[in-house]
């Protein structure tokens, strides 16, 4: 595609136009996916509570999210008189932007990746470490008590779980020997047992579990949604927000949830590779496999949200600092030791 545009429009400009189209091909379907995943979340949650969930707008209520979006769009943007106007409006922009940009390095297929950078995983870690700013700035700029407390909680919670996520990622990097996400996926092809490509790695499996739980805490999903615990903090840092600025926090949150599901699929379960290394399965495009895996993980997120009661803050901190962190640290030593012996021939 790039070549065609460059032929039509000249070298630099052709590249610019084609890249812009590729970016929109990621960003716009992503927003559509977020809308649909919110609907799916509500449906799954409702089904587990023996309710029907949204079923009025469109067939099976499929258009519910769009109706909500339209409604929210036409609402008034209320900016509290005591708030810092600029920062108040900047916070949702930051949240949503960060939720979008991390997708630039996620591989959707063998050569379907916008920016195939060497340090892809670090880039994602960097992007996710910025997620805390939207929340802190929103909480501070609102100049209101509940958002402020919520921002504090959110910041401490996110940084605590980022520590364990960092160490979990190191075990993945150790195994793959590269930060490049395509490389990490490629390494999962050569695997234990016949389940090639499915990426089931007994050594990394405990890390996959820790990553899944930490991802829930990092995105402040139930049961770790203490930042918006309605019984104590009203709506948390979103309390003062309205209209589309409020919706952007939602879109950002679900965008991040999808990203975490995509990461889980990519780092531990073979990304766009088919579940079993069997030739006919490769006929199905990789993007379908990736989406299927993302949806499975999203279902787990929903399932947990519907069934697990909310943690208390001290329990949350203990899980992060006293269980996940030492376990992940130990696992770094174990995985690297195993690789030293088997792959790099330390004893030979």
């Amino acid at each position, binding site marked *: 595609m790039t070549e065609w545009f460059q032929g039509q429009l000249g070298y630099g400009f052709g590249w*610019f136009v084609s890249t812009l189209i590729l970016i*929109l091909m990621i960003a716009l379907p992503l927003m559509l996916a977020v809308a649909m995943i919110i609907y799916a979340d509500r449906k799954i949650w409702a089904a587990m509570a023996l309710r029907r969930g949204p079923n009025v707008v469109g067939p099976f209520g499929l258009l519910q999210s769009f109706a909500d979006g339209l409604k929210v769009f036409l*609402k008034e943007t209320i900016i509290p008189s005591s708030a810092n106007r600029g920062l108040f409006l900047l916070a949702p922009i930051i949240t949503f932007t960060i939720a979008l940009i991390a997708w630039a390095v996620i591989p959707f297929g063998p050569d379907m990746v916008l920016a195939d950078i060497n340090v892809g995983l670090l880039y994602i870690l960097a992007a996710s470490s910025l997620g805390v700013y939207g929340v802190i700035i929103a909480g501070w700029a609102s100049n209101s008590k509940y958002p402020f407390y919520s921002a504090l909680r959110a910041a401490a919670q996110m940084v605590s779980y980022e520590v364990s996520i960092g160490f979990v990622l190191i075990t993945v990097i150790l195994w793959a020997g590269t930060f490049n996400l395509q490389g990490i996926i490629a390494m999962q092809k050569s695997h234990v047992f016949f389940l090639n490509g499915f990426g089931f790695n007994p050594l990394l499996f405990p890390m996959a579990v820790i990553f899944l739980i930490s991802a829930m805490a990092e995105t402040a999903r139930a049961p770790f949604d203490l930042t918006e615990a309605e019984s104590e903090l009203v709506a948390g840092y979103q309390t*003062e927000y309205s209209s589309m600025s409020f919706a952007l926090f939602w879109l950002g949150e679900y965008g991040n949830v999808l990203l975490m599901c995509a990461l889980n699929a990519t780092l531990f379960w073979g990304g766009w590779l088919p579940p079993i290394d069997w030739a006919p399965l490769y006929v199905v495009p990789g993007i379908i496999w990736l989406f299927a895996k993302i949806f499975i993980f999203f279902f787990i997120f929903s399932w947990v949200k519907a069934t697990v009661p909310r943690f208390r803050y001290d329990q949350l901190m203990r899980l992060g600092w006293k269980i996940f962190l030492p376990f992940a640290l130990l696992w770094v030593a174990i995985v*690297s030791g195993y690789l*030293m012996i088997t792959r790099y021939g330390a004893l030979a």
Partner: protein
Amino acid sequence: MAPQAAEYLPILLFLGVALALSAAFVALPMIASRFTGSHKPYADKLAEYECGFPAFEDSRSQFDVRFYLVAILFIIFDLEAAFLFPWAVSLGAIGIAGWTAMMIFLAELTLGYVYAWKKGALEWE
């Protein structure tokens, strides 16, 4: 420009597009509400939310020092991870000496971690 840097141009462009999109999402409803007539601010509506009361005090109060401690511990473990990143990809090249060095490094940090645990710095009552 270094050859690797060219890979980041799409990301820069993506950043621009994402910023523009989200800024549009914030700005457009504000403009739209002027036309639809939903933009009707008044003093009570613009007051900050405090369960229906007027605000008692300044919301930006001092808070517990434990939040600082969590942030500081986070920085230290983040730096530790920063050392682990290049180590993890160059494990084959640096061999057993590099591996042992990192294990000693991790042991040092574990010492600090055990100290934090014993002191109760990881406690959150």
